């Protein structure tokens, strides 16, 4: 049994590494990450302060991506914003997928009244725009940092993974190997972790990427509304500052265009990784899209 499973996962990994979308997406993502990490290694934190550079410089030799109205270099802001935004995505996606997977497993595996209640809960939180709850909480917890923000976003990122995992568990739990495990006296939790979890890893991968996308989206949305981490830089906060200093009207295009392009690259790369996961776990999709 175990060997078959390992074999299947190896095949999955091979499929994934051969997938063009996955590879392109991962390359863009890694390139973005590398530039950001390299930037943050070589940047002196003192240079992040306002007034470190002449104001409103267009991209040129002094500042490769120009400077803003407060005398901050856009390139240096990016070196802080990209890692922070990725951090929000990572923490929130991890938390959301974890909570979602647990709820989905419990709901799908135990069924009955537990399932009925959890299903309603999942449906409710799926239909309500989570952004409004985030607005409510973030406006009460003022002055959040990057990590707090990630935790708040993650706490509302579970419904969609929960629904997917529940559906998967429902289809898996009637399979022979689960029946055998049950007959051999394994407890419910043991079955969930030892028998079902390995089968779900591929699904959780795609879900994780999805949650990552939504989290970065939520971060930039909240930041644009003025609820972002005011003392730290994220891609959303960069757009927020650019808009509040009317960068568009002052024709400081490098200020607003840089974070927007970075966000677009990030979303596109994540979406391609997601498509890659989908196609690798379900090869029939390959011919369709």
């Amino acid at each position: 049994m175990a060997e078959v499973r390992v074999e299947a996962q190896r095949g999955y990994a091979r499929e994934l590494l051969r997938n063009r979308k996955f590879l392109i997406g991962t390359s863009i993502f890694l390139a973005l990450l590398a530039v950001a990490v390299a930037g943050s290694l070589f940047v002196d934190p003192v240079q992040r302060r306002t007034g470190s550079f002449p104001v409103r410089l267009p991209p040129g030799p002094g500042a490769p991506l120009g400077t803003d109205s407060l005398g901050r270099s856009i390139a240096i802001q990016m070196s802080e914003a990209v890692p922070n935004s990725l951090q929000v995505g990572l923490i929130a996606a991890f938390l959301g997928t974890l909570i979602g997977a647990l709820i989905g497993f419990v709901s799908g595996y135990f069924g009955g009244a537990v399932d009925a209640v959890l299903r309603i809960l999942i449906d409710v939180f799926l239909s309500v725009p989570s952004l409004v709850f985030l607005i409510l909480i973030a406006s009460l917890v003022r002055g959040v940092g990057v990590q707090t923000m990630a935790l708040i976003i993650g706490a509302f990122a579970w419904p969609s993974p929960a629904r997917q995992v529940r559906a998967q568990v429902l289809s898996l739990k009637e399979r022979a190997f689960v029946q055998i495990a049950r007959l051999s006296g394994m407890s419910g939790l043991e079955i969930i972790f030892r028998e079902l979890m390995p089968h779900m890893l591929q699904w959780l991968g795609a879900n994780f990427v999805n949650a990552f996308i939504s989290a970065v989206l939520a971060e930039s949305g909240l930041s644009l509304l003025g609820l972002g981490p005011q003392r730290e830089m994220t891609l959303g906060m960069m757009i927020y500052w650019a808009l509040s200093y009317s960068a568009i009207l002052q024709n400081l295009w490098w200020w607003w265009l840089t974070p927007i392009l970075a966000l677009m690259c990030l979303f596109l790369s994540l979406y391609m990784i997601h498509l890659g996961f989908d196609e690798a776990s379900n090869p029939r999709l390959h011919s369709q899209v």
Partner: protein
Amino acid sequence: MIAYLKYLSERFVIFVATIFISITTVFFVPRLTPGNPLSAVFSNLAGVGGSLNAPQLIEEYNRLFGLDRSLWEQYVSFLRELVRGNLGYSIGSFPSHVSDMLRSAIPWTIGLLTVTTLISWVLGSLIGAVVGWRGGKSRFVQVLVSVALVLYTIPYYILAIILVFLFAFYWRIFPLSGAYSVGLRPGLSLDFALDVLRHAALPALSMIVVSLGWWFLSMRSLITSLKGEDYILQAEAKGLSERRILWGYAFRNALLPQATGLAISLGHIVGGALITEVIFAYPGLGWLIYNSIKGLDFPVIQGGVLLIVFSVALANFAIDMVYPLIDPRIRYERTGRG
């Protein structure tokens, strides 16, 4: 019919649960943050220069939410005031009622949202159906799919910012912000209507273009997957015209999951619309909430959140109710019986 009623009652339970859970969340979240439940209200009073009426306001809030009583009694009184439509007073513009402020903002949001969502859903579904039915991997289709994919992955506000730059700043075709020109009196005149349309053009365009990509992609893949179904093959065998098979058979069946897709993504659409309003300073709920966040006006934020949740839940329930009507199987069952 019994199946229909069972289905409806199930959806109704979800609807009621949504309202109930959201209200409860909105009630408890401020009380879980440390300090006085309305500490946000009190501590922010001084900062907004509204301190003139502060004692009155604090007294009013104490009475309204019964802060001297037990949590349970507070909750009941919160619910009772909600049922009456009383959402309290704004802090930033005391003594305005929150409900009045919401009432003047909501028509703009609903107008923008309904029109753009309908246009993009219908248009995207139609184009997706035609492209999916034709199939093939021509250069044109490939480009169309990639463009749709890129549009689908970027959030509304990114496109909104680009549109503002191009059409309002660079070419100056459309106004930069607002819902109508300053100095123009809102009324039922042609001038005003045209002015409103001109102001709504860019926000609407950014919302339509982004969601169009998604509806196109989803309808295209639905139609593609339906092509091999038995009833399509049978219709072909009967010698029905291509057009009839596409619109009468394939499209009608694809409409069901497409409508479900609309119901599921309604929350996301609304969230995106709120932020788009901020970029265009469009005076709907998003703009109101944005300004309340800036002015530390928690009651207005809370009222806005409740109103949005309620509207989304209601719209979802409405889609759920219409859903069986477009399902050919349920229609068949009903005529079979009646």
